[in-house]
């Protein structure tokens, strides 16, 4: 299928909004993405015509809702090439998925003297849960450092992994855009006897994902970053690991039996899905997966690569030494998430001027404070592009940026 960005844009109603008579230039998709009509309609239709409990009641309406809910799980499994549908678990977001792994797998496997390896470019969601458990259990966290162009410095990886029980890393940095060599990192983890956990929040929405080709043990991501609704995340895990782990949250749906003396738990996936699930959201994510599949994840990646080249070139051409772009300059090694510093103007002030032009970027630490310290910044401006962004969005960013420059050099 050929990719037509104008056609894509027409699917996203918010992109047609005018704010103060100017169009919206949404460059914050690494934070959260906009939603196409296909997703909005799937949720609306379901609420209007088919809402019912899932996996609980036996009447037709409930059976149909259950089919849609479980059907969405199957779609997600196909989308990431999971070997088994029941290895795909619904969570509330990627953060909960990571906490689930740390609490459930970690509690069963980590104690004092053990080590877990993270990287310097992790999101807080892949740091804090480990720190919380480490404070209880006394295991060590080791950190893979970065090279000066924002790639993982793998020169000492084998030493870092030596004796480690888990290697947990992001497939793509949400600050630098760096795409990590996920399959090689999983292989290195396994060679050292560690499990490999991939935070794929920034990868699944933007490029084809194959958890088997990666060779990962756990993969996590969020619906809201991949044109799906909020309130839903995904944890994929190998059946053998998930089967061996204790449950995470207790309650309805995850049990096989409950007596006063104790409970027994259900099989996958119910074992890890306590309580009423995000049903409307799962149906929305199913529609999101269909939407992205129809467009083709190869096309999404190719389009974003084009935009990345254009954006890097435009920013450098127009602002030269006034701008410092963090991370790699090679668009083949990175996604369309671009963090930068502009002279000594504070990112918050830049984003203010940009906002005056409806250019929406994030200014801040992007939930990656350890990385920010490494960059020597409290904050950066981050423009992140997605399948619906155009070359004219790049122009709008550059124009607004030079206005910011003018304003703060009064």
């Amino acid at each position: 299928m050929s990719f037509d960005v104008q056609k894509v844009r027409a699917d996203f109603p918010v992109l047609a909004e005018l704010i103060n008579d100017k169009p919206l230039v949404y460059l914050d998709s690494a934070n959260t993405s906009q939603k196409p009509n296909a997703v909005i309609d799937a949720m609306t239709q379901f609420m209007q015509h088919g809402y019912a409990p899932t996996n609980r009641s036996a009447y037709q309406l409930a059976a149909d809702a259950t089919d849609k809910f479980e059907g969405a799980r199957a779609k997600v499994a196909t989308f990431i090439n999971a070997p088994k549908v029941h290895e795909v678990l619904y969570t509330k977001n990627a953060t909960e998925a990571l906490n689930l792994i740390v609490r459930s797998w970690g509690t069963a496997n980590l104690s004092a003297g053990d080590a877990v390896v993270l990287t310097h470019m992790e999101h807080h969601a892949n740091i804090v849960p480990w720190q919380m458990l480490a404070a209880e259990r006394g295991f060590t966290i080791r950190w893979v450092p970065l090279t000066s162009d924002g790639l993982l410095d793998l020169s000492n990886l084998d030493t870092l992994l030596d004796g480690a029980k888990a290697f947990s890393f992001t497939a793509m940095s949400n600050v630098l855009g760096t795409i990590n060599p996920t399959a090689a990192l999983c292989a290195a983890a396994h060679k050292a006897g560690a499990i490999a956990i991939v935070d794929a929040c920034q990868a699944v929405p933007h490029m084809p994902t194959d958890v088997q080709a990666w060779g990962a043990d756990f993969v996590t991501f969020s619906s809201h970053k991949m044109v799906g609704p909020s309130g839903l995340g995904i944890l994929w895990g190998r059946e053998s690991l998930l089967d061996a782990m204790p449950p995470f949250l207790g309650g309805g749906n995850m049990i096989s039996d409950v007596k006063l003396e104790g409970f027994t738990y259900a099989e996958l996936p119910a074992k890890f899905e306590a309580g009423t699930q995000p049903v409307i959201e799962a149906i929305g994510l199913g529609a999101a997966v269909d939407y992205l599949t129809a467009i083709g994840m190869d096309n999404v990646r190719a389009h974003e690569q084009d935009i990345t080249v254009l954006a890097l070139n435009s920013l450098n051409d127009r602002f030269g030494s006034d701008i410092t772009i963090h991370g790699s300059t090679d668009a083949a090694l990175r996604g369309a998430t671009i963090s930068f510093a502009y002279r000594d103007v504070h990112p918050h002030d830049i984003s203010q001027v940009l906002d005056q032009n409806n250019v929406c970027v994030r200014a801040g630490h992007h939930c990656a404070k350890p990385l920010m310290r490494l960059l020597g910044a409290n904050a950066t401006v981050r423009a992140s592009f997605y399948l619906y962004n155009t070359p004219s969005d790049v122009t709008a960013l550059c124009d607004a940026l030079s206005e910011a420059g003018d304003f703060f050099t009064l």
Partner: protein
Amino acid sequence: MPGLEDLYREIILDHYKSPRNRGSLEPPAVRSEGHNPLCGDEIEVFLIVKDGIVDDIKIGGQGCSISQSSASMMSAAVKGKPVEQARALIHRFKHMMSIDEGGEEPDTSAPLGDLEALQGVVKFPVRIKCAVLSWNTLAEALDIAAE
């Protein structure tokens, strides 16, 4: 929408009202237990395997007409049969219930007898779990007996 007669064939109601092989067996008979967490149905299977043959089987527990009649028919179908044949029947029955467990297509040449009547359950997906509960529990009992 399929009608109630598609689901509740006469032979099913008959097994429900007069369940075959109802009761329990003392050890050395093995015992396994199945729950349908959805609706609370419980099935107990008591099993004696002798010389590779299902020598005796008894069914305990409570459940709806579909789960009870399925268990009753199952017990009648496997009693006195070689273990291999019982396993093949489990595979074939789940296949009929549209549960694909991989492996070979089951051999459907032999007549199914009373069990044929449960075919209609497939049109009521929610009830498939009811029909299959006792079969899964039997599979577990066979595994235990083989240990």
